[in-house]
């Protein structure tokens, strides 16, 4: 009798449909969230990698400021000969070009390229012609501004070095030009065949030499780069498009990392849901199982057949989950519009799909194992006793529990393998969270148990929580822990959002002027339509602190700010708006007697050095040494966008120092362009920075990110709901029994309803309150310690979350209890009698 009995399996599947549905949904949810996250991550990654190739125009880049050495060239020639790579050399340098038949000159940023350039991306020309058909020997392609400044047109000639070359087209965009706002010189593309004729590469020239390589087999990328590395001279550098990744990519990988954590958490919740749904399902089978065991069924038979049932249900769930996840891929483009490059294809690879499926099955397997395993401990005598004896948990039980736990820890660590420390924090965090939730739950239940309550309904409801075999503590622990994380994410998101809004209020400065000279100030101010604040800026560096010289190497290794950089100082005699004094009492001391000058420092410098009032700092201000003593430490709200200076001196000390003036103001966007033109015309030395677009972009991006996070958090909320539903099912039998007894004792349906509702209400209230406490504490710690922004407890939203949770728990509980209420007690009692 160790085979699968088809009739038995089908019968198990067709009865207790609700429990089966919850089980299937939990499995589906786990897989949807896995597939969706993986697909999303994969798509973002693919887009970023392609972008990285374009930004480098190649797979491997060898670069040097000295001529590329012979061993490297030989090595590349060898690789090229065997067809492993294609290569193209570029030479980039500044030079002063002259109109061929005139005296006008202009500084140009020359880029001399071989035919293969660029391997990825495109150089876009004004004519729309392909780059390499235009850039033939003797011809050049230039920036539009060069034509304007030298009053030239296409077909005119330019004298560069010793060569005279003909301008054939205008470049609009090139793939690998770094965004360099301070770049000097206008772009000129030259064919490498003309390089020698220029006679500009000679001793004493400063040329940026590059060899771009395209590999023919993507898998050989790193080995090839490593091969080249072995022959490099010290001044040469080799990078692949993977190692030369940008800050944006780092940002995305952090973001995906955060989403992965949310994903793991969803998986954990879904797993708990799976387990409790299955437990509820099997509990209703206890009698059946006991009966078939009495009839001689072996444990093996029972386990095997129920495994078959679970496998079928799990299979349906997996199928649902995978198709749901695939469907979701189509939702992403809408969700992420404006966040990702426009041409990202959101698809998921077959390999990822299979990986998700395997991972999902492991989760289902590990969480179903316990309930199934416990079937073996069910004794045939169960049919004779109404109360089950508490199932004893043997060594195998704990071993399996350990297995599940280590599986999850392993998965977290694997997910975070690049950031092991964070992974360990995360695991410790989850364990800590569960420990806190457990402590709080038992504490609260202990208090509730001792409470003296007069109302009968309320008292009965409370007793209901401590019903034998009732999983109240387990439900509250999992539920409050899950809710705590969901609440916490929500609170964090609100606070980050708030901080963002506060940093960019509608009247935040959007226009910045730098390098205004002191003697221009009066005339410049007349140009501005509004009165505004201005800030003198004096450049300085620090040479020593308390007599100890600054060690450049040590300073530059610091993660945060470092003291080896240049600082912009200012002078004033009052605190700026929003600033507070943290130490020292006043900004400066009124009757200062010391030999040194006074300086006030910002508290964010404390990250670089543990400064204290009274410390001595040796400055070199505009090249002139100056000894200063710290007389105060200032602080400002972290999210403030007001100009902020690390060092503030008294006016009398710096007012004669060479300085430029910095101004920030807010203007309606439509007025900016006109003002910008006026300023450029009247004061060519003043730089104008218009941040309107940047701020708008930032706001859009922040909103999109919040949306993505909310979207993935939704999965954990759904998992939470499923846990509530399955836990109600798990206690269904006990409730039916209770309802029958209440009614037999003369209670009305109304009373029973009140008791059950109150019980659910209590459950929801306790879980939600505990969760809120933990979430508020967690969010507060993270805001203060990690994000360093002001914390707003969001009372309204918190109450709303509380209300919603209670409504949800009570609602789900009620829905599941309605059928119990409608049943007549006699039905239950008759069933009991007939069984005996």
């Amino acid at each position: 009798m160790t085979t699968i009995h088809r009739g038995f399996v089908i019968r198990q599947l067709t009865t207790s449909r609700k429990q089966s549905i919850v089980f299937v949904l939990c499995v589906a949810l786990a897989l949807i969230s896995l597939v969706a996250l993986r697909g999303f991550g994969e798509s973002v990654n693919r887009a970023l990698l392609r972008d990285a190739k374009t930004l480098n125009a190649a797979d491997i880049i060898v670069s040097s400021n000295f001529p590329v050495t012979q061993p490297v060239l030989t090595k590349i020639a060898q690789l090229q000969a065997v067809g492993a790579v294609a290569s193209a050399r570029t030479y980039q340098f500044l030079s002063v070009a002259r109109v061929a038949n005139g005296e006008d000159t202009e500084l140009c940023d020359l880029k001399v390229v071989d035919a293969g350039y660029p391997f990825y991306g495109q150089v876009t020309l004004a004519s729309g012609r392909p780059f390499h058909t235009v850039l033939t020997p003797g011809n050049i392609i230039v920036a539009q501004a060069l034509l304007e400044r030298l009053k030239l047109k296409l077909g005119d000639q330019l004298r560069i070095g010793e060569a005279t070359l003909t301008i054939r087209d205008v470049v609009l965009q090139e793939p690998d030009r770094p965004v360099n706002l301070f770049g000097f010189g206008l772009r000129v593309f030259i064919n490498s065949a003309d390089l020698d004729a220029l006679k500009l590469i000679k001793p004493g020239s400063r040329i940026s030499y590059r060899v771009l390589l395209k590999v023919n087999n993507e898998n050989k990328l790193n080995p090839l780069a490593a091969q080249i590395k072995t022959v490099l001279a010290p001044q040469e550098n080799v990078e692949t498009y993977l190692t030369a990744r940008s800050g944006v990519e780092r940002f995305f990988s952090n973001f995906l990392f955060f989403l992965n954590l949310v994903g793991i958490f969803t998986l954990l919740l879904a797993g708990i849901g799976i387990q409790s749904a299955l437990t509820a399902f099997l509990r209703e089978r206890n009698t059946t199982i006991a009966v078939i065991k009495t009839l001689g069924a072996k444990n093996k038979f029972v386990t095997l057949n129920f495994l078959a049932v679970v496998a079928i249900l799990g299979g349906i769930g997996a199928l649902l989950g995978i198709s749901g996840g695939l469907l979701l891929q189509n939702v992403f483009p809408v969700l992420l519009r404006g966040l990702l490059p426009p041409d990202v294809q959101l698809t998921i690879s077959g390999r990822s799909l299979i990986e998700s499926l395997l991972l999902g099955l492991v989760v289902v397997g590990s969480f179903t194992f316990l309930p199934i395993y416990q079937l073996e401990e069910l004794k045939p005598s169960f049919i004779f006793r109404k109360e089950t004896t508490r199932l004893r948990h043997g060594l195998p039980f704990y071993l399996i529990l350990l297995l599940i736990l280590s599986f999850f820890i392993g998965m977290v660590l694997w997910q975070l393998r690049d950031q092991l420390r964070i992974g360990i924090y995360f695991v410790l965090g989850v364990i800590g969270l569960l420990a806190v939730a457990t402590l709080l739950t038992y504490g609260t239940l202990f208090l509730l148990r001792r409470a003296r309550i007069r109302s009968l309904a309320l008292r009965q409801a409370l007793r209901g929580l401590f019903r034998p075999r009732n999983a109240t503590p387990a439900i509250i622990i999992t539920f409050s822990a899950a809710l705590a994380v969901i609440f916490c994410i929500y609170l964090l998101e609100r606070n980050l959002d708030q901080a963002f809004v506060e940093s960019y209020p509608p009247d935040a400065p959007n226009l910045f002027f730098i390098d205004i000279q002191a003697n221009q100030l009066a005339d410049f101010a007349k140009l501005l339509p509004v009165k505004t604040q201005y800030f003198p800026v004096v450049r300085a560096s620090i040479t020593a602190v308390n007599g100890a010289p600054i060690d450049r190497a040590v300073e530059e290794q610091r993660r945060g700010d470092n003291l080896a950089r240049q600082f912009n100082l200012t002078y004033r005699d009052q605190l700026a708006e929003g600033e507070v004094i943290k130490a020292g009492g006043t900004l400066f001391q009124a009757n200062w007697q010391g030999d040194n000058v006074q300086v006030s420092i910002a508290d964010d410098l404390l990250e670089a050095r543990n400064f204290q009032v009274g410390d001595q700092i040796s400055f070199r201000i505009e090249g002139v040494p100056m000894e200063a003593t710290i007389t105060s430490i200032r602080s400002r709200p972290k999210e403030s966008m007001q100009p902020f200076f690390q060092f503030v001196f008294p006016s009398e000390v710096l007012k004669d120092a060479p300085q430029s003036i910095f101004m920030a103001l807010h203007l309606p966007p439509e007025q900016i362009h006109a003002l910008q033109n006026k300023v450029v015309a009247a004061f060519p030395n003043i730089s104008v920075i218009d941040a309107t677009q940047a701020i708008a972009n930032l706001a859009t991006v922040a909103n999109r990110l919040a949306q993505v996070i909310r979207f993935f958090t939704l999965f954990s909320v759904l998992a939470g709901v499923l846990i509530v539903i399955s836990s109600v099912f798990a206690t269904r039998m006990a409730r039916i029994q209770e309802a029958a007894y209440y009614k037999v004792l003369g209670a009305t349906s109304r009373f029973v309803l009140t008791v059950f509702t109150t019980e659910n209400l209590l459950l929801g209230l306790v879980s939600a309150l505990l969760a809120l406490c933990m979430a508020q504490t967690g969010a507060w710690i993270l805001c203060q310690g990690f994000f360093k922004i002001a914390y707003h407890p969001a009372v309204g939203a918190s109450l709303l979350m509380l209300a919603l949770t209670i409504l949800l728990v009570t609602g789900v509980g009620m829905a599941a209890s309605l059928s119990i209420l409608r049943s007549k007690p006699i039905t239950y009692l008759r069933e009991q009698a007939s069984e005996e």
Partner: protein
Amino acid sequence: MRAWLISFVIVLLFTACGGAKPTPTVAPAPTSTAATPSEKARVIVAMGDSLTEGLGVDMDQAYPAQLERKLQADGHNFSVVNAGFSGETSAGALQRVNFVLKLKPEIVILGTGGNDSLRGIDPALTQKNITKLVRAFKAKNVVVVLAGMQTVQNMGADYAQKFQAIYPAVAKAEDVILIPFFLEGVADNPQLMQDDYIHPKPAGYAIVVKTIYPYVLQAIKALPGR
């Protein structure tokens, strides 16, 4: 993606201006330490750009510190104040000449103009600025040692010639001591230059000190009262 990058850079840039966080650049150079307590060291100011400030090397390896050690070792009680400022053009130097004069130098080693040439600034303008600088120091009886600079050869022969001619011309017209080429024997040697090929390594600065030392001694001899 491009738009993204640009907006990021702009935000970085404008927080840089607003929050006073410029790009990290340079290690500050040393201040003076007097050799003998009995006699107060006399002041030489090394004024210039990153070549003076010592971009990329430790503060005590830039040429002013090395020069001071050599002078002290040879019994000349002078302190050499590093008044170099990275990225500064001759126009910028002109703006802070009065501030530097507060240091009360007896000798100024003036090494500016390099950044002018890297920006392709008209050599005539650079020459005018350097002339004004020299005159401002001479007006306060400061002995000027003018450090001759050369531009990188890729700027084109025309430009390079015009630029290199500035220094001898100013030295002759204003009758000041001229170091023919500040980076003689350093600029074309990869071993002595940092990877950016603009700034010397500490060993490069040692050669710079060797190059300029005779001219500094000449300036000391020219001081009134010697």
